């Protein structure tokens, strides 16, 4: 292998190991803070680091300046483009500038409403009234800009406005971003020290650092080798699970005289990267693909059992036995559930599965029952609530990791969340199209329904790949969050209920899924061209459905957030009268 290939592989391996680790920290935060939101309370919000005001101001202003500088450098570097590309650039710059303007104004208005007006800018912004007005003005400006672009296409006024967009768009964007940063720095400058809370993320950081410094207690009569080995056996294999999952479409690197020159600017759908070096966004290029995932996932059983046995503690032993039994049971279902999907995709390689979904329909459409079964089995494999009896906090102290402290405990804890991330990654790749975004293919955004090309916006190759990676990460986040939501909702299963669910409900259901899928697949293969075309049309329709659902979701979210909150007042007690006289109980604010 060339040194370049080794370098690329190390880079990908590092990213694939760091990604679940960072995400597990974020998920721990989400579990605490957002879980508290579901219970109508705030969650941990006391971890604070006080930084000098100058540092906080620098931390706000410098990234803004850097971002603006990068954007302006990109605008200047792409100065010489002409034709439709220039129109697209003008539209992009103008919309970005409008977005920056109204979001900055909204931020300022919200701050002024909460903390009062201190200078003329504040007073001017407060005169507008409700901060929601800025959202409406912004959306109106976006609509006007889009209409103008469509209406004046090809005319001389259109060309003038295009030049205006290309030149003044970046300038307005720079003004808005730098103005917002300067305002934030001004607001921070009123305090003599700034308390940084990062909405509670510092709690997770503090927890991690604390666990490294805690005393490592090893039970005196325990098997020291196994006691130390168990967390390693649990932790390291789950970090490699995402190695066979593709994070995006392959990158095409251009070569010049045999050496790598850079990322290709554009690629075509037909001949993908015939003259360049293809870098798949996947660490391992194995033909067995998904079997590698299940092989590594099975090692968790050994780790849990070892932890329980080597702790010299009856409760730990119980927890370890429960863990081993549970994981073995649900692994059977996990494997069998996939077989239905494997029959349809026809391959064990996950990147080819994603390509199948990109061309036909997402896995959730063709295997809905399989998804539900896999989801339940994946939660059980990771020993998450409602299947967390091996760690049953209120019953056997902490189950199989009772006797672990410090960094070893942190390894168990993190490996649980890494298993959540890895299983979400696999589910996203298998059932939700992986990195595929509806109507985005290698050339850009192509809204094509059957044979009817409705809309097309060519995008450069790096942008397309970045969109795919971002979409995949968002899908993983959504699935992790769904697992968290199930944790917040359900009570724990009793052990006999858990085992009965695994063997008597999920296993027969997955076998039934295999049987039904086999029959349907054979029927489709035996049927004629008409059925094939009908199914392809259906596949396109599901793609459209996903896109529509996404757009509707975004619209609903925006409308939900613009709604004012209506609270019913109850001022019967004298405390309430005093609070009303003081202008509300929350006169102080704790900070971000």
């Amino acid at each position, binding site marked *: 292998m060339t040194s370049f290939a080794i370098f690329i592989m190390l880079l990908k391996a590092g990213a694939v190991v760091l990604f679940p680790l960072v995400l597990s920290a974020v998920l721990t935060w989400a579990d605490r803070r*957002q879980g508290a*939101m*579901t*219970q*109508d*309370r*705030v969650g941990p*919000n006391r971890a604070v680091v006080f930084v000098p005001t100058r540092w906080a101001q620098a931390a706000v202003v410098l990234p803004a300046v850097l971002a603006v500088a990068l954007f302006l450098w990109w605008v200047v570097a792409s100065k010489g483009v002409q034709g439709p590309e220039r129109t697209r650039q003008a539209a992009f710059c103008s919309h970005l500038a409008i977005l920056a303007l109204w979001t900055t104004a909204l931020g300022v208005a*919200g701050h002024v*409403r*909460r903390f009062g007006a201190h200078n003329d800018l504040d007073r001017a912004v407060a005169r507008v009234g409700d901060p929601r007005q800025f959202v409406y003005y912004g959306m109106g400006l976006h609509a006007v800009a889009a209409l103008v672009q469509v209406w004046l296409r090809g005319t001389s006024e259109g060309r003038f406005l295009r030049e205006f967009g290309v030149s003044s768009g970046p300038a307005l964007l720079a003004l808005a971003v730098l103005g917002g940063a300067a305002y934030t720095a001004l607001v921070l400058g009123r305090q003599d020290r700034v308390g940084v809370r990062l909405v509670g993320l510092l709690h997770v950081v503090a927890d991690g650092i604390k666990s490294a410094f805690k005393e490592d207690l090893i039970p005196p009569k325990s098997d020291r080798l196994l006691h130390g080995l168990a967390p390693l056996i649990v932790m390291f294999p789950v970090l490699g699970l995402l190695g066979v999952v593709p994070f995006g479409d392959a990158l095409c690197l251009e070569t010049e005289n045999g050496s790598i020159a850079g990322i290709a600017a554009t690629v075509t759908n037909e001949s993908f990267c015939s003259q360049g070096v293809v870098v798949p966004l996947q660490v391992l290029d194995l033909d067995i693909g998904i079997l590698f995932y299940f092989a590594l996932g099975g090692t968790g059983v050994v780790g849990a059992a070892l932890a329980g046995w080597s702790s010299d503690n009856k409760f730990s032993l119980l927890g370890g036995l429960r863990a081993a039994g549970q994981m073995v049971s649900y692994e059977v279902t996990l494997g069998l559930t996939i077989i239905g999907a494997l029959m349809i995709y026809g391959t064990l390689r996950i990147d080819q599965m994603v390509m199948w979904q990109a061309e036909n329909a997402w896995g959730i459409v063709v295997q809905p029952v399989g998804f*539900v079964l896999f989801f339940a089995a994946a939660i059980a494999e990771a020993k998450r609530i409602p299947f967390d009896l091996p760690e049953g906090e209120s019953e056997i102290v902490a189950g199989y990791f009772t006797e672990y402290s410090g960094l070893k405990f942190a390894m168990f804890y993190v490996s649980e969340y890494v298993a959540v991330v890895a299983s979400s990654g696999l589910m996203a790749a298998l059932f939700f199209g992986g990195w595929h975004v509806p109507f985005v293919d290698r050339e850009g955004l192509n809204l094509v329904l059957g044979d009817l090309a409705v809309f097309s916006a060519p995008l450069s190759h790096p942008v397309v790949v970045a969109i795919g990676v971002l979409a995949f990460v968002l899908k993983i986040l959504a699935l992790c969050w*769904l697992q968290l*939501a*199930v944790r*917040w*909702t*359900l009570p724990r299963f009793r052990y006999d209920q858990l085992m009965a669910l695994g063997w008597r409900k999920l296993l027969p259901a997955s076998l039934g899924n295999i049987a039904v899928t086999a029959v349907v697949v054979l029927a489709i293969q035996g049927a004629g061209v008409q059925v094939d075309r009908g199914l392809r049309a259906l596949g396109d329709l599901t793609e459209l459905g996903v896109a529509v659902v996404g757009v509707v979701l975004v619209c609903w979210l925006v409308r*939900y*957030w613009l709604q*004012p*909150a209506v*609270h*019913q*007042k*109850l*001022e019967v*007690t*004298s*405390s*309430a*009268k*005093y*609070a*009303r006289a*003081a202008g*509300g*109980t*929350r*006169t*102080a*604010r*704790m900070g971000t």
Partner: protein
Amino acid sequence: MAEPGLGPRKVVGTPTHRPARTARIQSYVPEVAAGVGITLKHFFRNTKEMVLGQRPDPVIESVNEGVNTLSYPEQRRPYPERFRGLHRLTRRRDGSPRCVACLCCSTACPAQCIHIEPAEYPEGDPRRGYERYPARFVIDELRCIFCGFCVEACPCDAIRMDTGIHPTPYDSRDQFIYERDLLMGFVGRDASQQGDNPRHEPPDPTYPGLDRHHHGHDD
């Protein structure tokens, strides 16, 4: 109806309601989805209110669903009107303590935390023989159980517990011993009156006088 083997008595009462064992319930998935929906409804509403600063006020809007958490001590819940806080000694119009050292409060106090040293007015003072004044008035706020018996016992409205000040957690016991001047320095919750109780004082027409023969202070 009487089951065979259960005797001649009729079975009475309502049967226990048990959930139906339909496929919808037994498969557990629709119920899980409904439960997750309730969880997420709370989540979205609370997150939106939290981020946009629309959380309901914990005291005024406490009936609402939402995050009603107070971050004590930066935010405080106001005490009720009749909250018994630190004691204060009220004053007359001329600034002297209203207390006549009758020792009713120290007698009534269950925790015996009030120590009063009464002193006689000097010779020639018209109040001599009718009233006394406290030379020392000491309350140990650590022993105090904040029952309010002293306030109820005082016949002159001289001691009140309406400062609204929560007893301060000091480091050592001697810091809790409050002397007369400190107690006279506290103000009531309204802060509008430093200690004035204008009723029954000269020149108020309802002033009863020292006795039926002496009306007014300088009588």
